[in-house]
């Protein structure tokens, strides 16, 4: 056994830290150097255990130093009367000039979208920002290892949670929650909106973080014609003018048939006839998705759609770079003073 009183050294160092005004100096103490030096002089079989002991001392001292530093830092801080309306000998605080205040153009547009859909009879539910594989994929008819999952470039956490790559991550919940209403003779009509994430490099037209809005409608007699009618109606309200639409087949495992939906670029944002804007993906909800939520697909049918929100904002103002949205740059934000 070594003859070093490791515990004693530790206590002495901790005491020195606790009373020091420059605690980091204690790390240079000769005792520590001696302890490390001693490791080599021990028989090899004792070195491991002793080395660990010495290291524990160092860790404990470092933790104490950090605590002491915080204490010292805080000691210099003057407390203030947290209940007062202003500081002693000063004037009442002013708010900032109202004309400098701005709402983010994206949340403003999202308000607008949510407003139209609620008036059309759709409940609005904010989407989750961390979810599991089941809601993101499994419940939406994406078999495990299905190639369609690749297209979503999902992030993963250590625990296997997923930052959702689409607001459809709420679809299963909306369906489950609406089941009773449906079976009581009603309909499910809801949108989910919020932030989604894709693991990709950022440039002027790509972001790893963006916003989507998703819609779900289920009834006894929903049709694809109704879906296209509903979507056109939304965009016509949104742009305040009659619009032409077109579709193309799209593949999304959770709908069947699946379509991509485009509108002719409205004149109000500088569109000319024949210019098309791809707006969203949509389709009739796959029977497996209804089944998974306990809804009988032989009794009920539904449609769903989802699209990005940034695009609407960019088109509206002619914003040139997607990266501005999450930049928190006042130079950008203050362009949207109302």
């Amino acid at each position, binding site marked *: 056994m070594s003859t070093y009183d490791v515990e004693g050294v530790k206590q002495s160092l901790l005491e020195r830290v606790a009373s020091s005004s420059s605690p980091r100096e204690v790390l240079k103490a000769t005792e520590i150097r001696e302890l490390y030096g001693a490791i080599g002089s021990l028989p090899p079989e004792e070195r491991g255990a002793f080395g660990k002991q010495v290291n524990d001392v160092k860790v404990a001292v470092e933790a104490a130093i950090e605590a002491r530093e*915080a204490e010292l830092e*805080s000691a*210099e*801080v*003057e407390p203030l009367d*947290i*209940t*007062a309306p202003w*500081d*002693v*000998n*000063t004037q009442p*605080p002013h*708010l*900032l000039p*109202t004309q*400098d*205040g701005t*709402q*983010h153009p994206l949340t403003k547009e999202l*308000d607008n979208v*949510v407003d139209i859909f*609620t008036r059309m*009879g759709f409940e*609005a539910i904010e989407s*989750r*920002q*961390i979810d*599991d594989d089941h809601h993101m994929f499994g419940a939406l008819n994406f078999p495990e290892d299905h*190639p369609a999952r*690749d297209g979503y470039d999902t*992030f993963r*956490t*250590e625990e296997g*949670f997923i930052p959702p790559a689409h607001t459809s991550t709420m679809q299963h919940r909306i369906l489950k929650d609406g089941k009773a209403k449906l079976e009581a003779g009603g*309909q499910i*009509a809801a949108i989910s909106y919020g*932030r989604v994430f894709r*693991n990709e*490099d*950022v440039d002027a037209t790509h972001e*790893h973080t963006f916003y989507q809005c998703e819609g779900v409608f289920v009834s006894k007699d929903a049709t694809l*014609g*109704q879906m*296209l009618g509903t979507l056109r*109606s939304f965009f016509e309200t949104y742009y305040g003018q009659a619009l032409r639409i*077109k*579709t*193309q*087949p799209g593949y999304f495992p959770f709908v*069947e048939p699946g*379509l991509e939906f485009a509108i002719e670029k409205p004149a109000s944002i500088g569109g000319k006839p024949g210019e098309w804007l791809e707006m969203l993906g949509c389709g*009739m909800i*796959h029977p497996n998705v209804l089944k998974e939520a306990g809804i009988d697909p032989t009794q009920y049918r539904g449609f769903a759609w989802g699209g990005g929100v940034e695009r609407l904002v960019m088109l509206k103002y002619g914003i040139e770079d997607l990266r501005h*949205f*999450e930049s*928190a*740059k*006042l*130079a950008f934000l203050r362009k949207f003073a109302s």
Partner: protein
Amino acid sequence: MIISVNWLKKFTHIDGTVDELATLIGARLVEIEGVEDLGAKYKDVIVAKVVESAPMEGSDHLNIAKIDDGGVRQGVERDEQGLIQVVCGAPNVRAGLLVAWLPPESIVPETFNAAEQFVLGAKPLRGVMSNGMLASARELDLYDDHDGIIEVDKDAAPGTSFAELYELNDYLLDIENKSLTHRPDAFGVIGFAREVAGIQGLPFQTPDWLNVLEATVENDGTGEAPHIKIEDPTLSDRFQAIVLSGINETAKSPIQMQTYLARSGVRPINASVDVSNYLMLLTGQPSHTYDYDKVRAVAGDDFTIRVRLAKEGEKLVLLDGKEVELDTSDIVIAAGETAIGLAGIMGGHNTIVDASTKTVLFEAATFDLYHMRSSQMRHGIFSEAVTRFTKGIPAPLSSPVVLEAVRMLQEYTGARATSPVVEDYPGVRQPITVTVSEKHINAVLGTHFSAEDIAELLGNVGFNVTFNGLEAVVTVPYWRQDIHIAEDIIEEVGRLAGFDTINLTLPRRDFTAVRPSDFDKLRSEVRRSLVRAGANEVLTYSFVHGDILKKAGQVPDNAYRVVNSISPDLQYYRQSITPSLLSHVFPNVKAGYETFALFEANKVHQKVDGATDEQVPVERDSIALVTTHAKAKGAAYYDAKRMLEYAVNSLGIVLMYRPLDGESDATYAPFEPKRSALVIDSKTQAILGIVGEYKKSVQKAFKLPEYTAGFEINPRELLASVKMVGIQYQPLSRYPGSERDVCFQVGQDVTYQDVVTPAEKTLAETGLITTLSPVDIYQPEDGTTKNITVRIGLISYEKTMTNEEVAAVVDKVIEAVTGATEGRVV
């Protein structure tokens, strides 16, 4: 994927212009990302005949050729026989040869899509006039060939357009692959043509050879075929092979075939490889050839081709010479016990075909798409073949492909079958039938198709439709393994007829109004108030770099960690919004903004919050603000507090403040306890959040101006309080009110709240309408006391109060305050 319109036209009629075709395909099949006019690239290339060719004097490799272009090119210098002089460095130029001539002023096709096009001229070369050039395959952008100029291999009169001769007056459709993940059939020109016929309402005629599903080949039996064994039927549905002898591995395929490969983005190599690629492009079925003798040598006594999973620690040198470590989920092809190929991805070097190969083993097989997908990712090999395997190749397809390959290889390489086709076929499947009623189809789509319409639309693309009363019984062709249920058939009908032809309606709904949720309304309200208060709303990332957590004094262990991010800035879920806001203060100050406030309403995630009933992490809503003044001195705390009160007072919430007393929450971590307060709803006593200035270390780490403070509150808690409290209305009085200012001198440690609480309590007992507001807070420089001046407002419901009555109330207030604070009135 590139699809040639001319190639499609070999299999189906196409109406209208290429733009109309692209629009129709876009609406009914798949997105087209672009259309290239291939004809433009070859418009000036002319087939010419070399009439004489002689070496140029003084040059060791140049020849002077006289060519006959049939006299079609205008404005070129000609000799008395009408021939054109071209200097040519190719070793194979000779009299009698038909060549591709690039006349002066034409663009070299190889440079057609380059940043700078190369336009030919009529220029002397070593003093000898050369009018344009004779082109090699490379200059024609067909393939890399160093053997010299291209030798036209079709009969053609001089002056014929090269583009016309080789069907290069073509348009190329650039297809967006992603939306065809479920359609292996459309990854072949024939399958694509079938769809193009279908969406035009035309029946598709499958080429006869593709309908032959029995692989019977005439052979002399001199080649011994291996035994085929798929060890696990989940790895492969079918594996077919045949022995071909007498193959000439240096033979070239016809130029026509080469041009179809080249325009589809596949480089022609030699006839043997080209046939395999050509059939893959046509049908979607990849194939592979092994050197037969090498396979035998590797196999040793056990001449069995096995399809199996790789073994632990197994390695394989691939065709490209790279050695890969195989994973136990990789499928390999083995001869005997030894791997000779990474299935579907790349063959092994040990059985490579080379110029001396005389006998080959030709393979056509299908492999499990999920294994293909993971092996492709693992080894990072992305080829045309594996792209197709990852879509799931249908097993019946391999027979016609083997037969056609045998035919073509015989024609182009002289190979002949010396064994029958041998196979293992554990994945034999019965055709899928789906029953769907006409009513169901129309109900889902909102259409009025008749039974005949449905049968015709589906029949055009190879479905067999019979009717059992009103029920359509649809037999799905083998190449549509993606069709299983009625909805799949409904999609086909809608798509083939065109979703754009469907009548638009709106769902029938009742008149029940839907209101935004209370939470959404509250958040909007707070947001609007903060904007009115001059703050700027921001959105910042939900993920932060570990450094941001550290700078803010938060513990990474409490943050969900993202493990596969491509950027180090996206390491952790943020635990609160404040650190994100703080990281954006300095850049804005630096950009010249002196006074501003940033706020964000979003979600945050802390591991300590645990999981919901659904076993997903609890999410916290949060609203945070930071306000700064780059040049000011003093206590920014009160600015942040003022903004917070402004935002919540309009909701009817009256706030109280309590010192932080060891409460630990990651949200509080950046705040300096001595200059921060917990924000309390005075009615419910609920903690709504925190307001304050930041720790010195935090200020330093984020380079914050000294005068910076902020708050972070939980809007869910705020909503709960708003629901409990609401706006408290007091009826107005008909009588005028009075105001009195009172200045209390109290000890310097007495807080403003210490003065206000007893005063308000006393006022509340009077039954009057009362107000109490601050006027001044003064502390002499050297004093141990401070003066707090408040204004008391009193209104009676019953009368105009007299001076005496007012004084009586004020006296009571003074008594209460001085009693509680040991102060005095000055």
